[in-house]
């Protein structure tokens, strides 16, 4: 599995936004929240990538707001950009990591079928 650190910056950093190659917000949201094209998105708990989050394991959230929970319980959002090649982005906290893992992509795809 090859791992590429994305634009992981602490909250105090300032310039993570806006370079030419950045996807538009709409495409990010659509890609992450839906199952557009070949993409696959999953919200899972850290360390439990193989299964969809159960109700009891779901991150604590408030109505209309994102979860604000301790790091170990932080929600992880996976956006599989290409199931065949296994290219995916993993979002957690204020970080993003890009992975290429065809096996994991296949297992995630299987989990939602």
């Amino acid at each position, binding site marked *: 599995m090859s791992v590429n650190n*994305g*634009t*992981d*910056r*602490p*909250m*105090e*950093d*300032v*310039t*993570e*936004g*806006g*370079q*030419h190659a*950045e996807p*538009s*917000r*709409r495409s*990010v*949201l659509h890609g*992450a*929240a839906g199952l557009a094209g070949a993409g696959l*998105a999953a*919200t899972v708990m850290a360390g439990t990538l193989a299964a969809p989050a159960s109700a009891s394991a*779901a*991150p604590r*959230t*408030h*109505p*209309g*707001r*994102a*979860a*604000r929970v301790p790091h170990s319980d*932080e*929600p*992880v*959002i996976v*956006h599989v950009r290409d199931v065949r090649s296994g290219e995916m*982005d993993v*979002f*957690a*906290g*204020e*970080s*993003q990591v890009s992975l290429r893992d065809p096996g994991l992509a296949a297992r995630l795809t299987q989990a939602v079928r």
Partner: protein
Amino acid sequence: MSSHREAPEISRDPVADSTDLYAFVSPDQPDTVTLIANYIPLQEPAGGPNFYAFGDDDEVRYDIHVDNDGDGQPDVTYRFRFHSQLLDPETFLYNTGPITALDSPNWNNRQFYSVWKIVDQGPGKLLGSNLPCPPCNIGPLSTPHYASLADMAVHSLDGGIKVFAGQRAEGFYVDLGAIFDLGDLRPFENLHAQYGMHVFTKPAPGVNATNRLNVHSIAIQVPITDLVQPGASGESDPKSVIGVWTTASRQAASVLEANGNTVTSGPWRQVSRLGNPLINEVIIALGDKDRWNHLEPVGDKQFAHYYAHPELAALLPALYPGVFPNLEALVKSGKTRADLEAILLTGIPSGLIPGFQNNTGSVLSDMLRLNTAIPPSSSPNILGLLGGDLAGFPNGRRVFDDIVTVELRAVAGVTYALVDPSFKPDAAAGEVTDGLTPSSVKAPFLTSFPYLGVPYSGFYNPS
């Protein structure tokens, strides 16, 4: 509008939509600069039951950036993050009685914020936390004595800094309805080609489309020395010049859960940007507006052609036949509008306007440039530099500056003579306007921080 709903994506995201940006040497505190970034456009004052609020800290991050070395990248950033507090989820009411203080138990749905200062993109320094916003202006029963209530939300922080974040009266005046009806300017509409329809037979006064509407303002007043490079001295010193812009960002990934909760995660992505007024509104073309909002000023060279050959400059002679012959010839010549590039992308260098410069060097970047060494004017002219007032737009921007008229006239050619003395602007170029003035804003501007007027109440507006 200056930047209200100016691009397709952000028009669907009001809490992250920057509408106006102001930067000026504070007239009542001339050793400070006031920076104001407005968000959430076109608020009808009667906004209940869910009155307007900033995006919370898990939704939107608001920044005001200052570049003090001309590279189009932030050297100083003030970051604002908000959080809401619902005292009683069992009622549908925003308030359960009159709100007479910021800690009133009658105020059910309130908002607080923290502000950081970030220097050279390093670790942030927390300047203040849990600072209360004022409520929205509801009416005489819910928010009696609103002006004094809002005054309580002006917070003094260490280091001679003041902050305010909350609802204000919209101070930007523009005849939106006419301008976006195929470039009609009511004071000259009898001269409009009208596509042969003969709708207008005589001039008409302008109509302020933003009248009696509110916005949400993020305002900070800081010592000039906090913003400029050390050793800045005098009007001619490049170190005295800063470039300012505001951005709003959201996290990259978002999932809407079945129960209506939203989970967000990942790095912050810029979704809104505003430096000079009206740029993404009428200079940048539709196909590039969203991308422009996602980028930093340092990358603006790719958009320079829009400034060099603005579509509006070609439209004016076409829409008003025979009124702008010299502008028409200039457009047809294909010459680059070096005047607009200087004003908007690099700042005006020394030598063009006696006693003035706000140049930041060669990096093309859309920033609101302010020469902080130029003192506030004792008799301001709303046309700023065009009116001989060196303390006004495009040297920064004050709340009352008539930036619509200034930019209309600049695009129409009045500033081109600065770079080509042989060019004679059309007589109409010095007269063109949408016909509005600060008197078109019914809520008076304030003479002290935060300078924008008391917001209109829902009870009285509309009336």
